């Protein structure tokens, strides 16, 4: 006898290899994982729309979409990259260096670019912030007109008004002490988030200390962040620093590298960061159980862009805004395809697909700087109309 198994256990079916129970289970699990992986590969968080079809509407089905031609081109580009970068190291493809911190290691890429971030100065901001009486709760357009006729042209004047003095005083105190966050919260209560005054508020920021932040992720939520970019404007330069994951274990270190760069007195500039980038970073911190904070004041310019440019654009995707601003990119992939490109990198270990991701992120940072300045100009031209 060559086997000792209980005859009851021998299946009726003749299998090629009469494997043990554990092996069979393993085999089934691997098959289940394979089918799971296939479904994940097919699941897309964006819609590919073939041209000629009707223009994308603002319908929620099409919230995240890209053109078929761009999609096809990106996939062709990916193939080309895989060929071009075959056998190349990360350092060759994307010059940078390994950064170590208390959370581990990640890859740091630094660049610098000559451009200038334009914002209102403090005096200009203050003048605007106090001359809109509607910032006080209870004052609408009608009351404002009436008050202005009576000679109360600024909130400061209202500190002498019998009815409004208390609120006017509270507001002026925040404005005078440059409590930027508190003023922002106050204005949010009173005005739409897209109101130009909230943009002008940037003039209040201490030492004009700004950081533009943009992250790239493996998806819309609850997946690893693969690249964190930050751009800091100086007098006539913008220095970008990008923290890249060479592989998933680098994530805590890359996040840590970013948040330790952001002192509490720095003001953030983001595009949809209030609902995307910042909560995303917080979720990842909680995921890893890292005690870290990112509670800086945030100028989310998506809101302003919508107000200023929506009538002129089909949508407010950064790519569309760029076309309007006349910005062109040498290398680009649609933002929606970033997860796919990174996934290809992970699977093939070919650094090619990383190149456009890093460039895409860097360009986003620079575009945000331009957009921020451009909005300031637009408001200034429009001023007096609102």
């Amino acid at each position: 006898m060559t086997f000792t198994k209980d005859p009851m256990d021998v299946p009726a079916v003749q299998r090629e290899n009469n494997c043990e129970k554990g092996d069979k289970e393993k085999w089934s699990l691997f098959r289940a994982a394979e089918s799971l992986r296939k479904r994940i590969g097919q699941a897309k968080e964006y819609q590919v729309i073939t041209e000629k079809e009707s223009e994308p509407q603002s319908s929620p089905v099409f919230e995240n979409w890209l053109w078929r031609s761009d999609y096809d081109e990106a996939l062709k580009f990916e193939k080309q990259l895989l060929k071009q970068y075959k056998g190349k190291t990360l350092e060759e493809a994307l010059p940078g260096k390994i950064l170590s911190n208390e959370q581990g290691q990640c890859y740091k890429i630094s660049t610098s670019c000559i451009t200038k971030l334009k914002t209102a100065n403090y005096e200009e901001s203050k003048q605007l912030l106090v001359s809109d009486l509607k910032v006080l709760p209870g004052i609408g357009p009608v009351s404002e007109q009436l008050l202005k006729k009576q000679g109360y042209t600024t909130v400061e004047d209202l500190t002498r008004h019998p009815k409004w003095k208390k609120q006017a005083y509270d507001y002026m105190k925040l404005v005078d002490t440059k409590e930027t966050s508190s003023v922002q919260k106050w204005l949010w209560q009173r005005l739409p988030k897209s109101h130009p005054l909230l943009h002008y508020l940037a003039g209040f920021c201490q030492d004009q200390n700004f950081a533009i932040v943009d992250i790239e992720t493996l998806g819309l939520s609850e997946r690893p962040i693969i690249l964190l970019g930050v751009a800091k404007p100086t007098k006539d330069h913008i220095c970008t620093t990008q923290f890249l994951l060479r592989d998933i274990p680098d994530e805590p270190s890359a996040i840590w590298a970013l948040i330790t760069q952001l002192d509490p007195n720095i003001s953030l500039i983001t595009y949809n960061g209030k609902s995307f980038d910042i909560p995303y970073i917080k979720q990842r911190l909680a995921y890893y159980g890292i005690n870290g904070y990112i509670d800086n004041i945030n100028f989310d310019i998506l809101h302003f862009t919508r107000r200023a440019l929506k009538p002129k654009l089909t949508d407010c995707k950064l790519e569309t805004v760029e076309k309007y601003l006349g910005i062109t990119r040498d290398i680009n992939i649609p933002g929606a395809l970033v997860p796919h490109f990174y996934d290809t990198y992970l699977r093939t270990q070919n650094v090619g697909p990383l190149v456009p991701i890093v460039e895409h992120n860097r360009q986003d940072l620079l575009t945000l700087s331009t957009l921020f300045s451009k909005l300031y100009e637009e408001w200034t031209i429009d001023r007096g109309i609102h």
Partner: protein
Amino acid sequence: MIEEFIKNIKQSGSYKRQIVHIEELPAHNAIFSELEEPLPENLQNILINRKIQFYLHQAQAINKAISGKNVVITTPTASGKTLAFNIPVLNTLTRDKKATALYIYPTKALTNDQLKVLKELEKESKIKADPNIYDGDTPQHQRANIRENSRIILTNPYGLHQYLPRHDLWRIFLQNLKFIVIDEAHIYRGVFGSNVAMVIRRLLRICNYYHANPQIILSSATIANPQEHAQKLTGKEFEIISDDGSPRGKKSFIFWNPPFIGSANTIRRSTHQETKDLLTLNVLQKLQTLCFTTSRQMAELITRWTKEDLRKSKQDNVVTAYRAGYLPQERRDIENRLKSKQLIGVVSTNALELGIDIGSLDSVIISGYPGTVISTWQQAGRAGRSNADSLVTLVAFQNPLDQYFMKHPVDFFGRPHEQAIINLHNLCITLGHIMCAASELPINDESDKQFFPELLTLSIQALEQEKLVRNTPRGWVYSGTARTAEMVNLTNISSKTVTVLCNGKLLETLTLNKAYEEAHIGAVLLHQGETFICESLNLDPLIANVKKKDVDYYTEALKDVEVTIAKTYEKSDKGITVGLGELLITESYHTYLTKTGDTVINRTPLDLPPLTFSTVGLWFIVPGNIREVIDDQGLDFNGGLHAVEHAMIAMSPIFAMCDRWDIGGLSTSLHPDTNASTIFIYDGFEGGIGISETLHSKIKQLWEKTLELINTCECKEGCPSCIYSPKCGSENEPLDKKVAIIILKEMLKLHAANYRTARKRRV
């Protein structure tokens, strides 16, 4: 009043001896008991104000829960289970000003209902808990506030599955979580239950991360294995509370068999017509009645017909339908009108089987056996909440299963409740949820074994192989490109929903399968007893347009189900053919019937692309020589094949730890892919869920058990205990018990012979 009513029915001229049995369930008095420790003053005041004295089971449950035990309460409907689990929660929330509690209900309708109860208790107890619902319907702008301020949150497992990855937003709530209440836990069985068991483990894992160790209170309908079920559902040990101390009025349970039409004694009058007549009688007698039907359409039709009958006496406005698919506001309105007795008759699908509070009812009509003993008693429990007498009437269908119970009523009343089965070793389910867990917190091979004692290491290996998780110094991190919760579906049923519009306004929503039946072009869609004609069914996007039109007919779509073998994983060919593989199940809706009453007045072809889903299944061939033996004796081979399929499905839960409703089957005397008589048994879920693989590996034991089941069953021609299926698509016909025995014996003989030759080869 009930006795009078029954007497009247029996004496009326139209009575045709439909009552085949009356089971009198005697009244019993309340048994009261005291708590071991006094409650805080605010809760005592509630008891005084509401004149509440605890029944035995309530006191037992509260005592155990307050002493820190996990408790499962299994007393019948309307025995005051809700109070039994709310008191310990409120006790803790009174004593600990930060403490929070999470209530999990299987449906949104139930959360809405229970929210009201909890809000009243909060007010009376003067604690600040701000009870709130948090589910898919919760507006985005209220969510943060609820998470941060509510100490009692009500949700459902589907929601929980989605929210767990964002536990960072729930930190404060979770850190203070003292109680998890899981109501109607018997719903969580089979594949759905196995999924929910995993969601609960993920929740407990996250609680553990926030250093919370909540106590769990479960309530369940009567099932055969409450303690085991609670333990498997949550991974914790439980104290069971089952001594019902609540008072009951006398309940008369009638078995009602529709009379034969004509003299041949072969065809019975339609169950629906009988139900309609009974409901009309109940309403005219002012007995507040809830009528359960087995389908949405029947709920609507019986409502409509009853209204027509009641129009003469101008009482048609006291009857309505109630079912899934109605908008929440409509449902709440019906619930309230039922409670305030504005409605006397409500016709419902099993949507009202669960514990939605609709007050006490005098009478319940169950139109057709609902398929399980658990459901039958749940539905029957809706009658007789108070101390008054009550009536339950089970109206039989003509199918063999219902007819069996009509012939053997004593069998029904002695029948044990089914077991609630949960499989913690299902590979597909476990794998999916371990992947979800990896996107919630990095997985640690060692410390996470306490939550996933089975298959953790192997699942991680499989996920790593597919690069869905990566090993990092902090544990295994999810690295796929899709959101895990989107990839794992708790019911494993496609969630495609069709929106039904009437003049551009939302009327209701339907699953795609239901839409094929009820919202194809030309279909009569019934909504609250009104008829709508469907003008279009658009498949992309999924929208059906209907127009209100009063018609006196209804429609019924007919489908063919086909099974094709798409891919063979394993197959043996020597003497006996048993296969395992990917099956493609195709449902083609080809025709719809236009009917009035039970008469078909028209047949119209349908032009709809078939619905297909791929799954995993097993099949085996019954060789031609067996068929010849049977045919030679003049016996019904097809009936035997069909009976074997049913009985095997009935026995499958023993091997695969699933619910029989999770499995599908098909038997055919000639299948094009095998060119022979074939029986298929497959997972009723897109992509397969591991049931058939288990059954395939134990096919011999499954045959043996099935043979034993049929052989030892005392019935002559078959019964619900052996070859009748509660979910047969062809009305349990044809079925042949004797032939089934022959087929199974022959298959086992072949298997043994095959095994002997295999052994010879090996030696």
